[in-house]
């Protein structure tokens, strides 16, 4: 059953370019990928949590994210000195009541972080998750 659920969640991001980012760079040198399924993160139940920290490939990954941005339902971005530095995209639902988010942060040079979250949490809850004191 768990395998079936995992398969369904993996397929849920198949229509997103961010899925390709994880596939292409998840095991590349200088990248760290974390993948969790059906986990609890800071008190929020998440169906899928995938994160990728990269030291290079920033430009290539940005191109994939741009494609997802076009198809996003909600786009929230931080702009510093005219450059988008971080934000999140809320993608269209593929399952009733399950939201899909792509979070990103661009670091110095070609470095950065991409996170894909799938779960029932609302945008407000996502913001709480991001701003909770570490």
């Amino acid at each position: 059953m768990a395998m079936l659920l995992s398969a369904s969640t993996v397929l849920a991001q198949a229509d997103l370019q961010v899925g390709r980012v994880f596939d292409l760079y998840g095991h590349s040198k200088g990248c760290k990928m974390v993948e969790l399924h059906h986990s609890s993160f800071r008190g929020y139940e998440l169906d899928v949590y995938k994160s990728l920290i990269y030291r290079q490939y920033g430009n290539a990954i940005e191109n994939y994210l741009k494609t997802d941005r076009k198809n996003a339902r909600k786009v929230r971005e931080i702009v510093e000195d005219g450059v988008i530095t971080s934000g999140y995209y809320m993608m269209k639902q593929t399952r009733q009541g399950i939201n899909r988010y792509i979070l990103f942060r661009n670091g110095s040079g070609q470095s950065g972080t991409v996170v894909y979250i799938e779960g029932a949490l609302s945008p407000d809850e996502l913001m709480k998750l991001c701003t909770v004191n570490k």
Partner: protein
Amino acid sequence: MKKYLLLLAAVIPATLWAAEPVDTIITKTNKKVIVTDTAGTTKVKVLENDGKEEKMTFEGHYSDQQDVEQYFFSPFIPNKKKGNRYFEASYPSVFLGFNNLESHCLSSMNDLAPNVSSSSEWGITITTFSFPLDKMKDFGITAAAQIKNVHNYFSGNHILTTDDNGQTYLKEDTRDIQKSYLSYWAFKVPVMLEGQRMIGKLFMSIGFSLELRSGEHSRYKTDGHKHTETTDVNLNHVGLNVESYIGYDGFMIYCNCGLTPLLNTHNAPKYYTGSIGVAFKL
């Protein structure tokens, strides 16, 4: 943000009444909200006036297909980029240490003994400047303006004096001299290369300092009375030192060494200054 969205909700029906495109400007204290409705897309801009200039803090595009909100500050992701660190020079507010006269710079032992004994210095930092050299702001060039007071004590019955020919030397007095010293003030400008945060709050710096000296006196005390022997000791009023700090948080240890002699060597003994001490940043 909710306030603006409520404001937006109130404004949109009004804009639907009018012919498109419609610009609505709402001004409240130092904020200006501009709402534009064009071809099914509502655009909202929030501008804030900080007293000097008007800056856009928010821009939103709302349509049936997509909501795009861009914040020109960070309301939901803490800004903890290392690149935004502030590089601050680690000069001490107060410093206190030993200041010895030595026969040459970096002398391992004081071969002027027994004429010159341990001496002291103290000082304060008036202002500092810093310029980071790397993006992480871990290294930088720093400078400061400092004032220090130095007392170099002479042992035995020795008094630093200057004769009628302008020659400065240590004379041995026949009286019982309780203490004898050379004192002066210095305005110091160190220029250092500093590294920070290598291990926690550890910092290190090395560089040069220029000293402008004045207010020199050779004084001694005998029979409980203080006397000024001379105010002309052929002091070099400009000096150059090499110096270094190492510290953690607000505490540091410093040392410096004179590269140029303290006194004019044509008319006075060749003395170099060397100091080591502790310092605190308040």
